[in-house]
């Protein structure tokens, strides 16, 4: 059998935030970089996001939040992943996020935070450099 590894990404919009132009643009950029992108749609609870990530076996979750509730929503996703023994899934975040919050989010387990004005290329390159499709035999039990 020939193997064709594809990175699978869930772009998700947690919480009560109706602005998803950025998430859509990002989904498109990941698509054009050759990734398979699942977009959650708006108004997702952390529980919905984590269940979707598990069922879809994604390698990366990209959380987009412009509402200011990131300090609750982002760490909650990390906690739920841990509860499901799925901490091997990388989580990144982006949106309107104050500089002071970035170290706290990283401490909570968010691997990288992207801010308004960042380049799509950087985000795609970051995913290519830091995330690998899970390997057979290396799965966490």
């Amino acid at each position, binding site marked *: 059998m020939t*193997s064709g590894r594809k990175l699978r990404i869930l772009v998700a919009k947690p919480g009560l935030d109706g602005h998803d132009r950025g998430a859509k643009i990002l989904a498109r950029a990941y698509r054009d970089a050759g990734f398979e992108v699942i977009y959650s749609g708006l108004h997702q609870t952390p529980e919905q996001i984590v269940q979707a990530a598990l069922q879809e076996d994604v390698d990366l979750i990209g959380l987009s939040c412009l509402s200011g509730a990131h300090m609750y929503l982002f760490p909650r996703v990390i906690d739920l992943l841990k509860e499901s023994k799925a901490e091997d899934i990388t989580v990144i975040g982006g949106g309107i996020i104050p500089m002071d919050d970035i170290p706290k989010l990283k401490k909570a387990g968010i691997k990288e935070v992207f801010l308004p004005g960042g380049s799509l290329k950087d985000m795609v390159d970051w995913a290519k450099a830091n995330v690998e499709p899970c390997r057979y035999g290396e799965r966490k039990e």
Partner: protein
Amino acid sequence: MGLAKRILQGDIRATARLLREVEEELPGAIDELKVLYPHTGRSHVVGITGAPGSGKSTLIDVLIDAYRRENKTVGVIAIDPSSPFSGGAILGDRIRMQRHATDEGVFIRSLATRGWHGGLSKAAANVIHIMDAMGRDVILVETVGVGQAEVDIMNFAHTSLVALVPGTGDWVQTLKAGILEIADIFVINKADKQGVNEVEVELQAMLQMGAYSADAWKPRILLTEAINNKGIDDVMEAIRQHRESLIASGRYEAHLRERSRLELFEVLKSSLMDRVFRMATEDDYVEKLIDDLASRRVDPYSAASEVLKRIVREGKF
């Protein structure tokens, strides 16, 4: 514990992972599939096909709801196209069904076509097996948005739904071969839109031209507004009646046999080609055959039978 064992216990993560391994044709996947196969053949598989934007995902969303109210567990396979340029994909069907994400009785998996034609993906057959082994009562398979000829779903689904919308053409479209022939149930969705009567009448006229034997299933034509949850009870009832008709007429068994035949041939074809590809890298045997072909010392038919003879002689697959 192996993935297959965990899948039989309903483990979501194990299921998701094996689906991935099957899709990416990783070497260990076949052994897990071997363990699961005896546990398959129980789910009712419903295919939903139709043009892009005809409401397939929304229809599935409300069908999930209806099945859950009957306490049935549901698997959903939602297929969207891969980019011919980047190989990437936007898998967007799930958006319409995401309200079911936290329901343990619903497992939704999005697949990209990855270059496969016919409306499904190459892995679809095995993905159905895995959800079946997991114990899902019903598996809903959403094809990519299709045109006229993508009819693979009929080989996998027990019941095929074709979703149509008003305003998509006149009588000649309904007379054509292809997708309209495979429908067990026509769902004219967005039935609040203008032109719904025309589509219904054209479909009825087409069905009247067909000769159906007394015990044959005559396709139903139903009107729905999936987004407003209208007409869904009728769709559920039609699926139920179709299943009963399949079983009563013996066509359910015939379908299973036909499905098994196709699957055997498909697996044979890919393992044979696999063997040939490996042979081509092991030594220069295949390259020499190609030289002979190019210089017309041998014809392709004799060359292929040479290859087959060598595979049989060596006995390693």
